[in-house]
């Protein structure tokens, strides 16, 4: 049994920060701060990502009329080595910071850990960020390198999202979560993260359905984080091959939406920020406004390491699931 129920965890507020590239697809006009370029008025990419994270935190505190010291702690995740964005970005504050790494499923893992601390009136801030150029540089190649990308790649999102959790009743409730198990089917194509992660999404979603006795029709939407168009079609094929006859129309992928209409973005968006930006920018407002009642949020993470890849190891992946519901 990998699913845990939460009695009283609510989303107090949420906010985002991103660059002009994220303000084009489905999030157009829905981001709290939009920077003109990926430098975000900073000297280098790594500082830019820290700026994005700090800006999203400032935005959510302002929206909630809270100060940093009103928070119990911050749970933060990013893609950088040694969680550089988290620890360098948040080093001058006087509340505890729990840094986590779960690749692009960090937002879900952060919400899971945060939920367990947001009890007895305590408020916990969960934030994740990613940056296109910083991630390219660390995981792939220099940004000006003349690389002809393969069609199956996804494009790392530059942005950050922050959510404050509380045990006091608010319109959006986190009802339950399902913990993921590390998956690995010996897949070695580093260009195709979506394909590599599809199995993690399949495993966590089916486990969640088994633990809760639910299926696709019990949710308005089941969203994966950044499988991209290829990864999503592989996931749907996995369900069909394993005998699911339910309609899969409400199974959608956030990565395909964030850069909708952008041909240079290949299979879609990815990175810790992708799922967080789409969640805060599109889906949480939909629950708050009553447009939808329930959401199963399943961001996936590819847990590979560049050195392991050069050592011809395969790509492990993981997915954690969170149930958001309109509070009754």
């Amino acid at each position, binding site marked *: 049994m990998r699913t845990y129920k939460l009695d009283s965890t609510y989303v107090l507020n949420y906010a985002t920060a991103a660059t002009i590239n994220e303000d084009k697809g489905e999030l157009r006009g829905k981001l709290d701060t939009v920077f003109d370029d990926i430098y975000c008025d900073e*000297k*280098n990419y790594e500082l830019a990502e820290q700026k994005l994270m700090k800006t999203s935190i400032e935005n959510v505190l302002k929206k909630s009329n809270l100060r940093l010291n009103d928070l119990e702690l911050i749970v933060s995740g990013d893609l950088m080595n040694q969680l550089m964005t988290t620890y360098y970005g948040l080093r001058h504050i006087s509340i505890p910071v729990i840094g986590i790494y779960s690749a692009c499923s960090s937002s879900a893992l952060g919400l899971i850990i945060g939920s367990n601390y947001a009890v007895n009136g305590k408020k916990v801030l969960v934030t994740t960020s990613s940056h296109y150029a910083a991630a390219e*540089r660390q995981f792939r*190649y*220099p*940004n*000006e*390198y*003349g*690389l*002809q*990308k393969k*069609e*199956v790649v996804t494009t790392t999102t530059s942005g950050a999202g922050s959510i404050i959790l509380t045990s006091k009743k608010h319109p959006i409730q986190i009802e339950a979560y399902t913990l993921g198990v590390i998956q690995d*089917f010996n*897949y070695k194509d580093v260009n*195709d993260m979506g*394909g590599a992660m*599809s*199995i993690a999404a399949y495993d966590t979603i089916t486990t969640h359905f088994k633990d809760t006795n639910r299926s696709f029709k019990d949710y308005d939407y089941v969203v994966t984080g950044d499988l991209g168009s*290829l990864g999503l*079609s*592989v996931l749907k*094929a*996995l369900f069909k*091959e*394993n005998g699911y006859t339910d309609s899969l129309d409400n199974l959608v992928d956030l990565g395909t939406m964030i850069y909708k209409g952008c041909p*240079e973005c290949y299979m879609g968006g990815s990175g810790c920020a992708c799922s967080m930006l789409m969640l805060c920018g599109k889906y949480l407002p939909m629950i708050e406004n009553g447009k939808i009642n329930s959401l199963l949020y399943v961001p996936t993470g590819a847990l590979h390491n560049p050195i392991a890849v050069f050592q011809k190891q395969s790509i492990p992946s993981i997915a954690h699931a969170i149930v958001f519901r309109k509070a009754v």
Partner: protein
Amino acid sequence: MKDINTIIQEKKPKPKLSNLIFAFIGGATVSVLGQFIMDMIVRYTDLSKSEAVTPMIIIIIALTCLLTGLGVYDKLATIFGAGLFIPITGFANSMCSSALESKHEGLVYGIGSNIFKLAGSVLVYGVVATYLVGVVRFIYENL
């Protein structure tokens, strides 16, 4: 029941034929540009045709580095693929982009250490292969 590897192979997009066409166009264009530069050098200096190769290569490398710095080269490379990474332009770009990217880490551990990060393997395998071929040929020619 199909296994996931089969599903992925079925759904993966196949490589486009246009990639090959653009690679040809890219390579041909670089060649024409290089030849034009060589002809200009022969016409306006007193270098012979064979002597003009070296300055032409230097000019092409300088141009590649400039385009890399301006942020234009990577956009061209997305279109032309091997048309740009097979000629010397690919070598120069790999060095220039690595150096440019690491500039914030300083002169020694940034630019200095990273210039050969991607181009190093071309040099290493060129030298190692030349050594082996050289030894074989030397022995053969002196038997």
